């Protein structure tokens, strides 16, 4: 399972409150990703990281920020949660073998914003 954990696994919050989701990996992988999954959209990339303190935006980054102060932890923050951010959030790491990049996923966090 690539040693990826996410916390919390479930969270209910109110509109306007800040929320931080944590992704932790145990195998020192360089690349980490945050996705959200919504019906009919598959997985959409929010932000990604290619090293400590090196992050960049994905296709749906508005309203989200990330931080990576240690290799093993990648944090996703919703500064002021909105109902449109109700979703299931997945963290992933990438393993490169030759010219192939393969991603392995955590178990997900179900976030509900009321």
């Amino acid at each position, binding site marked *: 399972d690539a040693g990826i954990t996410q916390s919390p696994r479930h969270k209910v919050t109110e509109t306007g409150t800040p929320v931080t989701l944590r992704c932790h990996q145990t195998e020192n992988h360089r690349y980490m*990703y945050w996705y959200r999954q919504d019906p009919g*959209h*598959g997985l959409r990339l929010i932000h990604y990281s290619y090293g400590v303190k090196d992050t960049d935006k*994905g296709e749906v980054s508005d309203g989200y920020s990330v931080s990576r102060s240690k290799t093993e932890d990648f944090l996703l923050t919703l500064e002021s949660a909105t109902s449109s951010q109700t979703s299931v959030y*997945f963290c992933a790491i990438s393993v490169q073998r030759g*010219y*192939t*990049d*393969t991603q392995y996923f955590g178990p*997900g966090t179900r976030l509900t914003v009321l």
Partner: protein
Amino acid sequence: TQLLEQSPQFLSIQEGENLTVYCNSSSVFSSLQWYRQEPGEGPVLLVTVVTGGEVKKLKRLTFQFGDARKDSSLHITAAQTGDTGLYLCAGAVAADSWGKLQFGAGTQVVVTP
């Protein structure tokens, strides 16, 4: 806008039947992965295909990468109830893309006894 189009979106079949899921794009991919996801869990990698025209078999699952590396298919022979799940295809657009993948929206497969 989805770079990868999966079809069908939903498929319901009986045990023992065969099924095929398609993943199509106008973009060329350096590699393509298929994942299966069960409720409440993260996607789990099934296979990675790299070479145009490549065919890989995983027990009753057969994966094919198109010659032009723009499309792929997943064929399941004699489906079992354990094959039920959301099947996702994902493509790597370029070798230097920081490992990023483009995902299709998924095909929900339901296999009934």
